[in-house]
């Protein structure tokens, strides 16, 4: 399977040891992952890797990437990502997919570094407080509850079952807790949003595709709609029968959407 061919490497970049998954060839496609970390080489990565050089670093504090104490919010992660890109000689402007918390980070980059992105895909992005509904509070529930809630039908998702559905080892449980802790450092309060971001988005010139699962039980679609109204060249696509993680719950459909957007 394509998924097995890409074990992560550890490299030195942007001041720390970084866990990096990379596969495929073609123009680079940077993926900024969610608060749940990168569980592996996803099916959607494998599909996108047929046409792109898919680059998935684990952000500081996630996976086996080191955790520097100075990374305390989404801006810090945004700056770090641009530093990472320079250190791995990533030619910019680059295409990017930002998932959930990673979407917030991507949006922050876009507001300050317009030359950094060519096209931007934001998937169930954090960063905006919805006007209707609330972002699910991971920290009032267990890690497992959050993982399950991120899917519309976890048991029917082969990606959920493969990575989070079986009995987890103590190491895997530790990783879930590690990710929760790092996410606390970044997004504790105001919870999962920036008071400033929505005011800066009208200045973003990057063509943007917003992708939301209709049944997203983590980040209300309303946030996506606010993003769409704020970013001038943006379009919101809602995927049916899909929760917070289209990149895992609907890999083929998601990959197609992204490819059409990037080539269109």
């Amino acid at each position, binding site marked *: 399977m394509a998924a097995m061919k890409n074990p992560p490497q550890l490299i030195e970049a942007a001041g720390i040891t970084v866990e990096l998954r990379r596969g495929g060839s073609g123009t680079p496609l940077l993926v900024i992952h969610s608060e749940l970390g990168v569980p592996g080489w996803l099916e959607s990565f494998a599909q996108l890797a047929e046409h792109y050089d898919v680059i998935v670093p684990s952000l500081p504090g996630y996976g086996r990437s080191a955790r520097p104490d100075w990374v305390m919010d989404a801006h810090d992660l945004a700056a770090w990502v641009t530093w990472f890109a320079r250190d791995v000689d990533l030619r910019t402007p680059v295409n990017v997919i930002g998932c959930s918390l990673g979407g917030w980070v991507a949006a922050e980059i876009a507001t300050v570094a317009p030359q950094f992105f060519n096209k931007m895909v934001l998937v169930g992005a954090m960063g905006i407080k919805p006007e209707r509904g609330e972002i699910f509070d991971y*920290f*009032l529930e*267990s*890690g497992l509850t959050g993982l399950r809630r991120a899917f519309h039908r976890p048991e029917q998702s082969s990606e959920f079952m493969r990575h989070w559905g079986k009995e987890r080892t103590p190491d895997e449980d530790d990783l879930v807790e590690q990710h929760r*802790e*790092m*996410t*606390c*450092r970044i997004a504790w309060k105001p919870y999962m949003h920036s008071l400033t971001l929505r005011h800066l988005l009208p200045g973003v010139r990057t063509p943007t595709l917003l992708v939301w699962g209709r049944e997203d039980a983590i980040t209300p679609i309303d946030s996506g709609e606010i993003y769409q109204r704020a970013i001038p060249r943006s379009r919101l696509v809602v995927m049916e029968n899909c929760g917070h993680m289209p990149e895992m719950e609907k890999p083929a459909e998601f990959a197609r959407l992204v490819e059409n957007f990037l080539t269109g």
Partner: protein
Amino acid sequence: MTRKFFFFSEMGYNAYPIEALEQYGYSALLFPNSIFDREKARDLWQMFLREHEYASETGFDGSVCNEHHNNVLSMQESVNISAAVISQRIKGTIALIGNPLPIHDNPVRVAEEIAMLDLISGGRIISGFVRGTGIEQLSTNANPAYNRERFEEAFALIKKTWTVPGPFRWEGKHYHLRVVNPWQLPLQKPHPPIWAAGILSPETIRWAARQRITYLVLGSALDATATCREIYHEVAQEDGWVPTSEHLGYLIHTAVMDTDEEAYDVGRHHYGGASVIGRSGGVAASALTAGTGSAGATGGGPHPEWMAPPGYMSKQAKTGNMARERRMSEGSYEAAIRAGLIVTGGPKTIIQKFKHIIDRTDPGYLTFWAREGKKPHEATMRGIELLGKEVIPALREHQSALVTGEEVTPWPQ
């Protein structure tokens, strides 16, 4: 030092209907405060304060106050207010066990309030500092990932506020103050005794030993307490000094009545989530069937993550030996009794049991947690009276076997 004997009560809101606990399965954090009855709370306050007063009248050396938030476990949502009120009702020491430092965005405010307490009480304050439980972090929105850092920085700032003349500036990682210059400084010099308190987090014990401050063991079983003392002594030895009994406090559930049987019966009020600090979040209705009637309920509960939000508890604290010891001793009321988590008896039995406890742990501060849950006021007052008038006088002169090298007083069969 001569051993000191204090009185403690969580002053919990025990007046909620049991059906509410059955419905929600927990009694903290999200347990809605629409259930809170203001008149009942007013009456509970008067009863609890009277019990502190009576402890002072019967011979206790002082009273202990605590702080919790969003929790029926304790109505003391400000330990400094509790201490202020109690200081005016009793003669002896007031020990705060204590101010949860990480929940404050301005630690200097904490320093100011303790200074006021110490001045107004005439220098009778012991100032305990704690990290707060997971529930405190969630209810005050203090980032649990930074809990230990915030604790240590706030501690350093408070100590500096008391000991270094102002004005000075503090630009730290978590706290930023441009003019630290309070006009209330504690009466005691250099400052009131500082305590650290914990529920078996090895890191906190080590930290307290490094600071050479008293570590108060909060209601743990006897073996676990002995382990805490060992850890403290190991660290002290590494640092080249020898702790005394002054460096250990022991808070211990105590039910004394006229007979062993009555005491065993009344001791059930001590069994339950409210009576085991650290388990007041995520409580289960299962304990109700154990007939405790105590404020809150114990057991796994639906939300153990409330007591351990991300980054709050180290893996060692969660799964290490001490955590295991704790779990083993909390399975049932009988198990709690066997492990010495709750100590019951008539006066003679209690005296012997506490001689055994003193022999094994040598705490300079023995705090009788003598009121809990729905224990009736009359039974509580009788227990306080027996402790104050019979038990404490008999224990005052007892030297620990750890000091004398003599045989440990046997635990009564």
